[in-house]
């Protein structure tokens, strides 16, 4: 294995690129999935879903800007969005699970956030998909960052 010389730099570059690219893939699939639920299946998004969209959709644009040409600083811009989105997703999950009581849920009219509209295999719900996606984006971005700092 090569540990010195320009080849190493090239390889960590490629790894960083692939990791950010993977994060973009996750964000894009999430965005298209959310649009499918909302626009095609016509399920109205609840308030918490809107906040999660607000933090997911910009990633689809910001991450590619960091890919061409590769700019590892993109992690600094993307990570805050992903973390905030993750917090909303976690809050939503706890709400659906009933851990957080009804009274402090922020949506009082329109679509109740605690309502489960989709349940695949008995446990996969939209907030779970969202939490998984945000976790994956965060993990991939953190990996990108740690690869580049070495």
């Amino acid at each position, binding site marked *: 294995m090569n540990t010195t010389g320009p080849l190493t730099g090239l390889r960590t570059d490629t790894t960083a*690129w692939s990791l950010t*690219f993977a994060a*973009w*893939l996750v964000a*894009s*699939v999430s965005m*298209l999935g959310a*649009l*499918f639920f909302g626009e*095609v*299946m*016509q399920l109205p998004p609840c308030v918490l879903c809107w906040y999660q969209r607000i933090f997911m959709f910009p990633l689809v644009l910001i991450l*590619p800007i960091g*890919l*061409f040409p590769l700019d590892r600083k993109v992690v600094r811009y993307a990570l805050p969005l992903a973390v905030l989105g993750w917090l909303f997703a976690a809050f939503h999950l706890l709400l659906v699970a009933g851990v957080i009581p009804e009274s402090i849920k922020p949506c009082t009219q329109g679509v109740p956030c605690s309502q489960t509209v989709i349940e695949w295999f008995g446990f996969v719900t939209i907030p779970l998909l969202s939490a998984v996606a945000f976790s994956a984006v965060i993990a991939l971005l953190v990996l990108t960052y740690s690869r580049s700092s070495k």
Partner: protein
Amino acid sequence: MKQKTLFIGAAILLLLVFLIATLVYQSEKIDQSAKFAERNRANLMRMHSPALGKADAPVVIVEFFDPACETCREFYPLVKKMMAADRERIRLVLRYAPFHKGSDKVVAVLEAARKQGKFWPTLEALFASQPDWAPHHAPQVALVWPHLEGLGLNLEQLKADISALETAQVIAQDLDDARALNVTMTPEYFVNGKPLPNFGYEQLKKLVDEALNEAQRR
């Protein structure tokens, strides 16, 4: 270079998957709603449903509507025009679908007016004054009354009928039927039992014309 190809390829692939999934979902939904309507034909019309046109007209348009719905208001004159063009052969049956919150109370007014034989003038008065009594999509039955003056309604009887059990049952029945027929938005039209493939005046016109042609051939 390779990375650019990978990125563009992935983006195109994702969009294609999205488009194909959308097309598949929509065509399945059209099939499903047609089958739904076929299976639940009995739910299309009820004895109480207000109707315009000849009872034996070959083309029957069933419309699920909400008096507070703006699109219903806009479509009403269009449907009337369609009927005026072929008075003998088109029948319009209205079904209540009060999906707006508070709209059920306005529907109760309509139903009570129907008992006095004043359904159509009341409906027209309500549509005409819709922005006044349903500001910002929030129907308020208290604002309805001034617009019903001059229709010759017996208001005392009307108020009694509004809170009658029978009225509530009629509304519940129509909402049940809407559910059975998979009606989720208003207005929703069925032409001789067939739902619109997707919403729009052109689609409704096409379905009615097809039904008229079919009636002609028979």
